[in-house]
């Protein structure tokens, strides 16, 4: 069987704010919170992807808040998926378009198929479907918009909720003073570590809009599955003043709580690496979800972050079991 010709769209890197595409594909008119990080992410992703795009929206804030009353703000085609199965639904859409292209029903560039999944829909209840899709090599961009909780259902803990965060399932109390005792999953490493067909994995935040949009475009230009892990601060869940949403993301990077990097052809590239990291308490103090923590908890968090920072200096090696050239 000859390799499938994806007929890629021409998505050039965006050099400046002034050259960002003017058209909005995520339109004003959605019920997301004022200052919502994931909503800003959606807008930037949609702008970067352009009009030849199909979004898959598993249940979560970016479903319910956007699509509350039998209407949506998506100017491009979009389909709701269950929180469990976005990776699978996206796989089916990709396969259908491949068949349509093979049979001549679909001409023109292959659509951008983008999953917009929350942390739960990506690496908790949605993990299996995401992994299946990554394994099978579908040309789909899977975006995990990470607001570090099941926010839509009223802020419950998810596998990316930080240690020490208060959520409605991890409330601090006499017996459990920290609130959340577990440390989060390492999302991009899960994708990178075990899926030979994955072409590109990157992390970014909504405070780095050009970085974000260019990573979206780079991912969409790859002939296989790609994954973006994007930090999207949530004023309602993290309990900070809603005007500070991008500032929280900046602080995450400045303290080492979050690192922006790309993994491409087995090589790691870190960006926005601080010359000197701020202490994690700088990040945690403005957020009400950490207000109950004692110095010993903050110290535990600092130790965790110190280990993460070491990785930045010493990129994680990946045993390349798959040869560099692989059929599409």
């Amino acid at each position: 069987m000859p390799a499938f010709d994806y007929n890629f769209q021409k998505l050039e890197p965006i050099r400046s704010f002034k050259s960002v595409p003017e058209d909005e594909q995520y339109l004003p008119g959605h019920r997301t919170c004022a200052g919502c990080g994931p909503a800003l992410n959606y807008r930037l992703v949609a702008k970067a992807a352009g009009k030849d795009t199909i979004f898959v929206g598993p249940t979560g804030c970016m479903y319910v808040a956007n699509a509350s009353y039998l209407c949506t703000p998506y100017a491009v085609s979009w389909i709701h998926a269950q929180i469990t199965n976005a990776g699978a639904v996206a796989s089916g859409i990709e396969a259908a378009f491949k068949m349509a292209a093979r049979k001549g029903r679909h001409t023109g560039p292959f659509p951008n198929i983008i999953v917009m999944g929350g942390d739960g829909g990506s690496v908790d209840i949605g993990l299996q479907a995401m992994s299946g899709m990554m394994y099978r090599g579908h040309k789909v961009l899977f975006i995990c918009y990470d607001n570090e909780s099941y926010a839509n259902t009223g802020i419950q803990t998810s596998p990316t909720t930080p240690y020490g965060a208060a959520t409605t399932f991890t409330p601090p109390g006499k017996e459990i003073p920290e609130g959340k005792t577990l440390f989060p999953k390492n999302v991009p490493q899960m994708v990178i570590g075990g899926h030979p067909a994955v072409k590109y994995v990157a992390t970014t935040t909504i405070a780095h809009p050009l970085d974000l949009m260019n990573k979206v475009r780079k991912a969409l230009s790859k002939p296989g599955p790609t994954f973006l892990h994007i930090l999207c601060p949530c004023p309602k869940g993290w309990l900070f003043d809603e005007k500070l949403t991008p500032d929280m993301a900046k602080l995450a990077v400045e303290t080492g709580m979050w690192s922006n990097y790309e993994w491409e052809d087995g090589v790691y590239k870190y960006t926005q690496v601080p010359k000197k990291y701020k202490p994690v308490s700088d990040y945690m103090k403005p957020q009400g979800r950490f207000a109950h923590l004692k110095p010993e908890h903050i110290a535990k968090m600092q130790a965790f972050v110190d280990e993460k920072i070491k990785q930045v200096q010493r990129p994680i090696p990946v045993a390349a079991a798959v040869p560099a050239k692989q059929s599409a």
Partner: protein
Amino acid sequence: MAKESMMTGCRAAAEGAKAAEVEVICSYPIRPYTAIMMELAKMVANGELNAEFIHGEGEHAQVSVVLGASAAGARAYTGSSGVGVTYAMEVYSPMAGGRYPVQMSIADRTLDPPGDFGSEHTDAMSTRDQGWLLGWAATPQEVYDNTLMSYRIGEDHRVMLPQMVCQDGYFISHIPDKVTIGEVSQVKEFLPPYRPIHPLSLTNPVSHGPQIRPDQGAPMDAMRAQTFLAVPKVIEEATADFARIFGRKYDPFVEQYKLEDAEIAFFIMGAHSNTARTAVDKLRKEGVKAGMARLRWVRPWPTHQLAEALGHVKAVGVIETSTSYGSAMRGGNLIHELRASLYDLDDRPLVTSFMGGLGGETIWPADFDYMAGVLTKMVKEKRTDRYVYWLGM
């Protein structure tokens, strides 16, 4: 030339899917339906079938993958058995309510616990409230035929519903019988290409499935119920057209065997109907006015057709190869709807049920003798003694 050969129900299902030129197939192994996918895999690998063959990571994924494919405009196909069918439960309503006419081929298997490869209908019957079309074949030929008829019915714009095409595991899925495969020209005449109504498109963007308010929910449900009022006519048309083109005639809803003057009747679904027919013949020879009604569609349930077929019978024995613990009759799940279908008749039959074939066991001719004895006694005494009898126990 239409070819006749010996093939199992699983192979017949795969031949049906191939004839229908399905475009996206999602597989996952579970006995006994797996053979359907193994056949399709060979067809795709050899270039006999131009399709995307996707290895789902589980049954829930299978149904999700074909949902996405159908939403994007492809004729999609999947299948499962037993707990695989129930694992995918979450996705059935989104599929039916989203009006994606995929087909799921089910080779029945007893539900866990524990593992039991034998056939019971409970797996697919458990999904009957989710809004799919749901029907049973009793021979490999009927599996092939139902595969084509179900796509034709499900993709009709008056319907646009997903379909479960079911067959008893092992009895039908794995025992070969004579099957005639249609000519390409016959299939082309019978089954038009899939025409999605609002597919996910780049040129005509649409949103599939926005959240709704509670007051929008009732009309959504009502419109789905309205569709089911329209389905029987489409089933009748498709079945008649199938007979015209392929030469094989089916009663659209209920196969009626020696029912016209029957005093006792077996109401049954699936593989064991083949034994039931033989039993009816034997009983007739012995002077018993026996008959058989074989149900072909569970959804939509043919309420009036059953009242018509069985209304004159004095006692009906529902043979249940399924379980519904704690239900009204404390047995299986066909009896409730059958009794409901007969309830409004002036002179309604006595109805009881017999739990048979459970676990994948055979229902023996001697069992039919026993059942006929029970039904005859009911007619004589003019009363139903019990709602349910467990054969052999």
